[in-house]
Structure formats: C-alpha cells, structure tokens
C-alpha cells in the first residue's frame, strides 16, 4: 500500500474501532501523512575530521566516518571512549553541554549541519534521537506523547492526521497492540520497555531521516531488549539508524556496519576500525578490535 492507500484513510477514521484493533480488519497502515517513505530516498550521514572538547579536555580526535543510508550502524567501544559524545554531535545535542566545543563537519545529505545560519532545531527534527533511559513526558498522555513532536516543532495537524500519525507511529514502534485501548493514560504508566518504544514512536512521529539511539536497551530487561531490537530491524527500511551499544551481541544482531571507538588514558577517543559488522566481528584487522569483540577487555 503506497500513496494509492490514501483513499483508505476514511475507512480508518469511520470505524470507531480504536477499542479493539486486533479483531477489526484495519487496512494495512498506509504510509502516514508525513511518514511515508516512498517519496523520499533515505539519507546518509557523514562526518569529516570531527574533533570535540569539553572545556580544555579533548574527547574526540579527527573522527571521519560515513553512516550509509538505509543501514543500521552500530558504534561500539568501552565506556568513556566518546561514542555517546559522537552520537550527540550528529544532531547538535553536543552544544547543549556547557563548555562543549567542536571542529570538523557533519554532513547530512551533503550539507553541513553546523553550517552558520543553520538552526539546531531543524537539524534535530531531521535527525531524531532515542536516549539511554526512557523519558516519556510524564505530564502528557500516551497520545500526546506521540504527537508531542508536532507541538514542539510547531507543525500543525488536524485531529484526523494526528489520530492517524499516532497509530502509524505506534505500529512502527511495535507498541500499538499493547496500548491502543489506553492512549489516554500517562506515559509514565508503561513498563520500561514500553516506555522506550513509546519514545521511539515519538521520535518517528516527526518523520526523521536519521534516528540516533544512545544505548536504547541498557536500562531494559532481555525481553524488552529483544522487542526493541525487532523494532529497530523493522525500521531499517524507513529510516537510517545509528545505535550506540555496549552489548556486542546486540551490535552483531542488529547492525550492518560497525565502528569501534577507543580512547586510552591520555588520548582522546577515535575510531580504531570500521566496516561491515560481519567482517569486524569475524576478521578484525586491528588487534585491539579483536581483543574487544572477543571480550578480552572493556
């Protein structure tokens, strides 16, 4: 179902069937009003010589790396090697920390997101982010949480569009069946894993081109982790994903390419090795990578 599915839209609103979606034959979700991937080619992201500082301390040194469109890229490495910082540089969240500084370029579709005159808010809407700890807005219902991105970035939408967007986003995040009958409850009333999927749905609702995930499963139990990983795998064809993870099995399971970050005591973090995940885990070129992926340190 692609654009031609739009006529199916009224079917969806006229059923009054929000209460028990599993039994009612809803039409397969036609691409949301604005989350339709068809008219848009997936975007890739590239960094050139990115160096980052916190105050006088340099935490990243000349990181050049390409995250290809339509792929899931995993960033792995021991704690404190700068991979989270790197991720936050990609959507300009880095500059929200006091004393943070940066050099280099981050190219989204060939355009530098740090170009003068570029608004951070616009960059962040195109490059969404899911955080380590689930952080749904506690003062909003599930419904409002999902559409909060519209409100927060000033996009107007009619009620039908919003209803539709909520369903589409929740379905993509694999949460619809669990919460469709209680969209009015506060976001904090869900379990940790559900909250994290709600956050994913919230990020998807503004139809980002890239989705950054900062250890999205590290605060969750194994079952929820598996659910999130399935969600990530399903999202691969809609959005380019960059995921930071401490869990090497996870990196192996979900990602197509991989970058290994490392920082020693006196040197800032840099990419030791990158490439297809398969190769990085089976045939690493660098002995440090081999040690790390085989669990000999870190």
């Amino acid at each position, binding site marked *: 179902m692609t654009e031609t599915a739009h006529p199916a839209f009224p079917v969806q609103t006229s059923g009054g069937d*929000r209460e028990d979606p599993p039994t009612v034959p809803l039409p397969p979700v036609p691409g949301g009003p604005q989350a339709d991937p068809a008219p848009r080619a997936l975007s890739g992201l590239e960094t050139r010589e990115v160096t980052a500082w916190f105050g006088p301390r340099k935490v990243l040194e000349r990181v050049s790396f390409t995250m290809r469109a339509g792929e899931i890229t995993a960033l792995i490495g021991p704690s404190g090697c700068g991979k989270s910082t790197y991720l936050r540089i990609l959507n300009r969240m880095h500059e929200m920390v006091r004393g943070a500084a940066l050099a280099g370029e981050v190219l989204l579709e060939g355009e530098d997101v740090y170009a003068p005159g570029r608004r951070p808010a616009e960059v962040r809407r195109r490059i969404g982010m899911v955080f380590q700890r689930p952080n749904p807005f*506690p003062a909003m219902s599930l419904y409002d949480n999902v559409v909060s991105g519209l409100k927060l970035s000033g996009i107007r939408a009619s009620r039908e569009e919003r209803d539709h967007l909520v369903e589409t986003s929740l379905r993509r995040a694999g949460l619809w069946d669990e919460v469709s009958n209680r969209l009015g409850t506060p976001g904090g009333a869900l379990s940790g894993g559900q909250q994290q999927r709600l956050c994913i749905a919230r990020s998807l609702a503004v139809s980002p081109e890239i989705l950054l995930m900062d250890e999205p499963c590290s605060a969750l139990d194994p079952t929820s982790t598996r659910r999130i990983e399935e969600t990530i795998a399903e999202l691969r064809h809609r959005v380019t994903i960059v995921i930071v993870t401490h869990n090497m099995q996870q990196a192996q399971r979900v990602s197509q390419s991989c970058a290994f970050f490392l920082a020693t005591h006196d040197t800032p973090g840099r990419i030791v090795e990158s490439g297809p995940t398969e190769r990085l885990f089976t045939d690493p070129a660098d002995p440090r990578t081999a040690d790390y992926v085989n669990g000999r340190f870190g």
Partner: protein
Amino acid sequence: MHSTLPQTPQTPQRPAAPEPPDPPEQRRIKLGGTTREEVLTMLGAGAGSLALDWLLYERVLPLSGAFGFLLCWYLLFLALYTLVGRLQWDALTVRERLATALAWSSGLLVLAVIAEQIGYVAVRGLDAARHWNFFTETMRTTAPLSPITSGGCLHAVVGSLEQLGLATLFSVPLGVVTAVFLVEAGTSRRSARFVTPVRVLVEAMTALPSIVAGLFVLGVVILTLGAEKSGLAASLALTVMMTPIVTRAAEVVVRLVPGTLKEASYALGAGQWRTVWHVVLPTARPGLTTAVVLGMARGVGETSPVLLTAGFTARMNLDPLHGNQASLPLYVWNYVKQPYPDMVARAFAGALTLMAVVLVLFVTARVLGRHRAPTERRARRPLRRARTTATAAVPAPAPTPAAVPAPVLAVESR
C-alpha cells in the same frame, strides 16, 4: 538400615493416609510497635514526675505559675524516664527511647501550639460566628453597641477575595516567568550574566518588610500618581509581597524538571520557548500550584500593605478600582482595638473566617494541581471518535480534504 525395612511395606499405604489437616493459622509476629513494658514505663514515669513536681512546686519551692509547673514536670519526666529505663534496659536503648520521647514531645508541642491558636480564635470567635448574619451582612448599620445579631464581615470577605484575586493575577505570571528565567537563562552565556542580579533582587524582596511594600504603593501609586485608596492599590501592594514568594517556590520546582525531558524535547526539534511551554511547565504543574498557594497564603493574611493602601469602610464595595475597600485582616485589626466586647468577638470571628478562607484556597489549589486522572482522557476518547465519525460520515467528500494536507506536512517537515 533396620528401621527402613519394616517401613517398606507401609509405603503403599502412605497415599491412603488421611490428608494432613490444614496447618493452623500462623501467629503473626508483632513487627515494631511498642510493648506493654515500654508504655507502662512511660506512664509510670509520667505519673511519678507529676507527683514529684507537685510536691516540689506546691510544697517545697517558693515558685508558682502554670508554665513553670509544666516545664518542671517535663524535665522531671525526662529524668525519671531515663532513670527507670536504665533499671531495665542497656544504655543504648535508653538513649534511643529518650530521643524518641524528645522527638514526640516536640512534635506534640508544635501541634498543641497550632491547636491552641486555632482553638482560641475559634472559641472567642464563635460568639459572633455562630450567628448566621455574620456571614451575610456588612457593618453598614451596626453601631458600637448593636447586639451581636447585627453586622457581619461579608464586605471584608468580598474585599479580601477581590484583592487576593487581583494580586494573584499580577504576581503569578510575574513570579513564574521570573522563575523560568532564573532556571533557563543559565543555559546561554549571553543571558547568564543577568541571573545573579535577578536572584539577589528576588531574595532581597523576600525579606522586604511588608509595611515597606505598603509605603511603596502609597508613595508611588496614591501620592505620586494620584490614584485613590482602593482595592487595586491594595492588590498592587500585595503583589509586591507575593511575587518573590511565588518566584522562589516556582524556581525550585522548575529546576526539578529532569534534564532528560528537556533533552527529549530538544531532540524532537523544539526550541527553548516551546520546551518551556509544553514540557517544563506542564511537568512542574503540581509544584507550581504549591508555589501559587504559598504566595496566596502569604498575601491573604498581610495587613500592613493593605492598611496603607485600601482604606477602610463598613460598607460593601464591589468595585476594586474606586473607593475604600475592607478586607479580612483590616476588619480584624480595626475591630479588635475597640473597647466593646461584641466588636472584639466580631474581630475574632473575622480571624476565624480568614483561616477558613485560607483552608478553602489550599484545598482548591491542591485539587487543581493534581495531574489529570489517568482515566479521564480514556473516557473522552470514544466520544471524540464518535464525533469524527459523524463529521466524516455526513459530508461525502470529507475524506479528501483530510488527505490533502498530508503532502503539505511532508513538505513542511523537510
């Protein structure tokens, strides 16, 4: 070995054996709480110290007075309790129990003071407040020696509510905006310079004597600008008192909003304004309500700012813009000075009313400040679905306009 042999033939019989009866209900162990021994020790120490105190105070020492008697009783009780406790418990337990007794007695002391205040006002005030006319009449036709069944505080209640409402209207936006500034301005280097001066100013205003707030409004609004004494002038004076209270209380709760929520908002493409409006303030709402209540509680009882700016009248004045307007604190202040017992009773009844007003305000604000009940939205949603169904079903081409904005949105999100 020998013992097992005779048992082997019995094993088939075992299943046939009657089911063991349900085990009797287990006795619950008493967790925590006090034992009879402790209670009796405390009661004994209390009675003993009372007797000793009476002996000392009434027969031995050349002292008198209820306060000294109670104080001596308390000190004797502590001493006796320690002594009796030492006979049966070890030193550590005695110290712990003594600390418990001290904590309890200080708590009870505070409660007693509150109860005494409210009770005294209530007892004195009920003389007037038990007559219904007190809440339905003004003092317009009441002469100094009129019976208690005439006259009341209605005009003062109305005046208080109007002045407080106006002052809240002025001070809450000011205070909350200032609080948001204090918290949010720190994030950008350009505005961070102003944070410290503003905070110092707010703290200085908190300590401002209330009579100065009244003098300020008297000097600026009434004497310089030539406005008359009125409810509005009084509410301006109250605003000066309430704003710093609201600001400081609101700053605390705005600062408590987790940074992760703000990050989430920024990561969705929000600016600082929208983050504050849609995420920070709604999350802090219960706390903000408390801040507002604190400010109102401070404002409603203020006498001196109102004294200089509102004037006083025995008549009902509904218009806060013109003419003198009474308020409850002024009512109390004005009538408690008079040498007529009925007037003093009315003043106490006014004080009682003031406390009741504060109580009502607190409860209202608490109810308003709660997060939405989780089920509220859910109950509404089917209704909304029904409504959209109805609107979509009646006009046939309704779906088309619904689908049209979709590409617009997609373009806008680029």
